[in-house]
């Protein structure tokens, strides 16, 4: 069974990420973000959302593990910040119902959702500049970079919450991520 560890950055929905993975037949562990990453074995990692980058613990170390990583909300911002991109306050907070335009139909994570998808979001900050090697894969009226991918390193981020029931095709995002994890293991 494919094993994906969800790294808990104290987000409201972290447990739903575990549940969404469990519901599609993935062996999903929930791991505190201050645990030594070297002790966590998995075919892929999800970096959860959370209230504050200062409480992200050792999440960034998972980016060096050479397995696929999916950053959700703060988890995506953390990937951007860590790898040389930038994060800042949005002009317009993204809450609840947002329509995301998929800008790369071939993206392994969200390309299957093209041309657009309805998502549930909850964030004040957003990724302002992409890190090197990343491309933008989704955008919306309220947030320029709704999703980003680095397919060479299998690092992915979405600014919205695929784990909540009100995101229309959230489960598909997790299925795609599972496929990515299975492909690289």
């Amino acid at each position, binding site marked *: 069974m494919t094993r994906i560890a969800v790294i808990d950055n104290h987000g409201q929905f972290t447990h739903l990420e575990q549940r969404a993975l469990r519901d599609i037949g993935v062996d999903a562990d929930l791991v505190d973000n201050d645990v030594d990453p070297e002790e966590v074995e998995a075919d892929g990692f999800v970096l959860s959302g959370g209230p504050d980058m200062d409480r992200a613990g050792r999440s960034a170390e998972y980016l060096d593990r050479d397995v696929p990583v999916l950053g959700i909300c703060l988890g995506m911002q953390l990937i951007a910040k860590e790898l040389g991109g930038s994060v800042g306050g949005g002009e317009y907070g993204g*809450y609840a119902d947002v329509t995301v335009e998929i800008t790369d139909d071939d993206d392994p994570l969200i390309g299957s959702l093209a041309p657009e998808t309805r998502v*549930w979001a909850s964030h004040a900050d957003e990724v302002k500049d992409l890190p090197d090697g990343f491309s933008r894969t989704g955008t919306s009226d309220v947030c320029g970079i709704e999703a980003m991918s680095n397919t060479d390193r299998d690092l992915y981020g979405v600014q919205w919450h695929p784990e909540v029931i009100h995101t229309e095709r959230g489960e598909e995002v997790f299925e795609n991520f599972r496929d990515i994890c299975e492909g690289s293991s």
Partner: protein
Amino acid sequence: MVNPTEFIDEAVESISEQIGDDNAIIALSGGVDSSVAATLAYRAVGDQLTPVYVDTGLMRKGETEQIRETFSFMDSLQIVDARERFLDALEGVTDPEEKRKVIGEQFIREFEREAKETDAKQLVQGTIYPDRIESEGNIKSHHNVGGLPDVVDFEGIVEPVRDLYKDEVREVARELDLEEIISERMPFPGPGLAVRIIGEVTPEKVEVARESCHVVEEELEEYEPWQAFAAVIGKATGVKGDNRVHGWVVAVRSVESRDGMTARAQEIDWDTLQRIQSRITGENDNVARVVYDVTHKPPATIEYE
């Protein structure tokens, strides 16, 4: 998704083991969570369990009578009339967290007394997964998570549904043959109508909230909301029968959700909204206007406080 049949067998067995020959007590609120926890525990240990239902005076219309009927199969059920004590304790309290605290403390006093009378060594609680997440995240305090164990020296705490989400608890409720009205029942917060009243909880506002919630639940039944209710949110000017009134503003809220973690405000047709408005302002002289809340969660929470 949990398998209800297996879950019930395992839960009953594990509860029997945990409680052993002790006496146990559970606070039965009439919501799905505590109803399921109580029924599981009652199956496990019978009248060793005393389910205690406290009528706080902050319950929905007809709720206490319904509880008495639904749980009549439990010989040990205790119904405590604490209406006056709760209202007295809430006098002058306006801060939302303080309100929850006062209600929590009064609950504890009521249960402490019952627990001592029944010599209960084990506390059974209907805590579910999201209660724990929200309490850990400090978004809101949940009265059924903390409090009581600090005051009464229980030997053990039994939480049979602590790993389940609300929709899973409902599956279990159905399997337990709890009447449909319980298993399909909308979530109702522990502090009751108090969190549907902004500012001080007074008998007048409780009455408005209770009658308005009743109207909303009746009128919106066909929309099958996850939760539909009314809240008393302030005062504003109106004109009734050529007289100026400075009356209550009642907010109507109706949301759909799977697990309460996110929610969508429902699109209600105009005629239905108007009928709700007309019934609430017509049946309550002291209500000046009715508004409909269109905010999803996030950014709003489902309840007002």
